[in-house]
């Protein structure tokens, strides 16, 4: 598998990025020593949100997948745009929604029925379903029958037309339409995956891979005792309330990988050219997606407790690697023996060890790369020079563009 990997060192001060059921920051034992931990699911969500933000800034609709229960509203609006009268459009949308999911008895504020669970569909998927329905002769006939029955007020005919519609919009047909759809803007689905319990054929295995994030050093959770002052209390001198919060500070090793072969296959973001020669999706689309994805991985951070313990930092070191074959391998073993506190802090030692681990992988197992460059916080360049090995340093843009150039 041709794939790319990001290996990131990042220091986060007093924070509680990801907590367990007791409100303590998550931890794990590694190398026999307790580490601070942020679960992969937690940081992934931050990356998804950030990717959407970046795409919106760049006026790109590549990351516009939305999880919503308002499928009937969304689909019927699109059908109406295709010239189907709104009453028939709603009836069709309800049928489709009922096939993909279960319809809820509740309606939204505008009177549209909702599906029972949130579904992750992209704009292009909705368009494709609408297009397939609007252009199908069978559906057209059934819509005509439906409209006729509505005009005549004949409920029995209406029921009959609806039943015919259900047959046309069977499960297999709907999912086939979605699969053959021009999923131009389903980048987030392709990258992170989708689970549909009702119809496994709609399931997408995400092309990206993430590991739980661990601190490179021993980390203990600390307790913040706090007292809140009652501003209006003039009688007593004590605190209005007292309590405790748990937090920690850590230098983390973060890992992410992306299977470039999988991204380019038909289940993900493979090439699509229409019969008339219009290119809907190509390698250029994938490059744009990967660019946004990489940027989001580098810049995102879970927002938990951001108003009281803002842990919003940027990485100090980002190593980007592209490999022609093999499977993604993380460099966390560089820190199995925990980094010790020193005058230089944790960061310099962590970067040095990671660079050595990278070189070791190649020497021991012959794990080779097509591309390896690193972004380093300016003031650290001199300190880590000795252990840089073959890794060249560059700017964030150069790193991302360099990696994107290998997207197939």
């Amino acid at each position: 598998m041709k794939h790319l990997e990001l290996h990131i060192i990042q220091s986060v001060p007093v924070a509680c990025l990801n907590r367990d059921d007791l409100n303590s920051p998550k931890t794990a034992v590694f190398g026999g020593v307790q580490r601070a931990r942020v679960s992969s699911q937690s940081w992934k969500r931050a990356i998804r949100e950030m990717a959407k933000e970046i795409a919106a800034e760049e006026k790109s609709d590549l990351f516009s997948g939305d999880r919503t229960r308002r499928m009937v509203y969304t689909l019927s609006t699109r059908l109406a745009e295709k010239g189907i009268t709104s009453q028939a459009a709603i009836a069709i949308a309800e049928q489709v929604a009922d096939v993909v999911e279960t319809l809820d008895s509740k309606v939204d504020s505008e009177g549209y029925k909702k599906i029972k669970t949130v579904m992750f569909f992209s704009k292009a998927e909705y368009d494709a379903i609408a297009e397939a329905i609007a252009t199908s002769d069978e559906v057209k006939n059934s819509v005509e029958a439906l409209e006729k029955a509505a005009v005549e007020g004949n409920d029995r005919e209406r029921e009959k037309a609806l039943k015919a519609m259900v047959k046309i919009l069977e499960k297999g047909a709907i999912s086939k339409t979605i699969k053959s759809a021009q999923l131009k803007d389903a980048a987030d689905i392709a990258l992170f995956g989708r689970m549909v319990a009702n119809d496994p054929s709609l399931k997408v295995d995400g092309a990206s891979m993430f590991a739980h994030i661990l601190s490179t050093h021993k980390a203990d959770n600390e307790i913040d005792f706090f007292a809140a002052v009652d501003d209006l209390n003039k009688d007593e001198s004590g605190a209005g309330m007292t309590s405790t919060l748990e937090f920690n500070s850590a230098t983390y090793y973060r890992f992410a990988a992306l299977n470039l072969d999988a991204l380019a296959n038909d289940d993900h973001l493979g090439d699509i050219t229409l019969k008339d020669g219009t290119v809907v999706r190509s390698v250029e689309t994938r490059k744009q997606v990967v660019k946004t994805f990489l940027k989001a991985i580098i810049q995102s951070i879970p927002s938990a407790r951001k108003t009281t313990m803002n842990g919003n930092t940027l990485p100090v070191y980002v190593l980007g690697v592209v490999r022609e074959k093999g499977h993604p391998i993380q460099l966390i073993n560089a820190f199995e023996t925990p980094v010790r506190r020193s005058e230089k802090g944790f960061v310099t030692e962590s970067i040095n060890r990671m660079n050595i681990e990278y070189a070791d992988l190649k020497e021991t197992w012959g794990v080779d790369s097509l591309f390896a460059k690193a972004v380093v916080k300016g003031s650290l360049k001199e300190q880590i020079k000795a252990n840089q090995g073959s890794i060249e340093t560059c700017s964030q843009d150069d790193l991302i563009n360099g990696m994107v150039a290998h997207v197939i």
Partner: protein
Amino acid sequence: MSSDKSFLALRLEGPLQSWGFDSQYNRRNTGLMPTKSAIAGMCCAALGFLRGCDKEQEFLVAFGAVRMTAIAIPRNGAKKELPVRRLQDYHTVQNTRRASGAINNDCVLTHRQYLTDAAFGVLLEGDSTLLKQIAAALENPVWGVWLGRKTCIPTAPVLAGLRENRDEALKLLLKDKPLESFARQEDVESFADGRDSLPDMPVSFATERRIFSPRRVRTLQGTDRP
């Protein structure tokens, strides 16, 4: 020993691993040894088989005849061997369903277990052609390879090597230490030879219809290493 038999050595190293064999839904536990279903799944992913496809069916039938031995290889810390522990991850999921099919508006709590500081070697012995196919696939897999759960990314290539001789294959994993000194779990040929049955022999990985059959195993404690 017939010449059409080979020995494939796999190395399972990574800070977190999870080898579930008895749990679904809210509590996803891990066993203490890699499961045959996880290894079979890893091979299918490496080969690029779609879930539940015909090729997968054929492969799983053939894989059933492959004899697996999982070996716990302790990791060395700075001063002594590292103890393997279980980590319980607290994981919340929104928008799930109730048994009745109704949407659940409450956040569901799930617990996922991982092994920390564990490392394993796996020896597969069986038909040469099949193992050669697996080895080639693991060297350059079609899809990702992970240690029981997608977030458990390995820290070294999983493929250690394919050998014609059992001892040579074991040597790739254990260096010069005897197999007897390690805790291990192996497939047995007859029911009476085994001590335990695990429901982890995959029959199908089809998403809507995952089926496993029992696998008879024997777990052996390691003698003190020299």
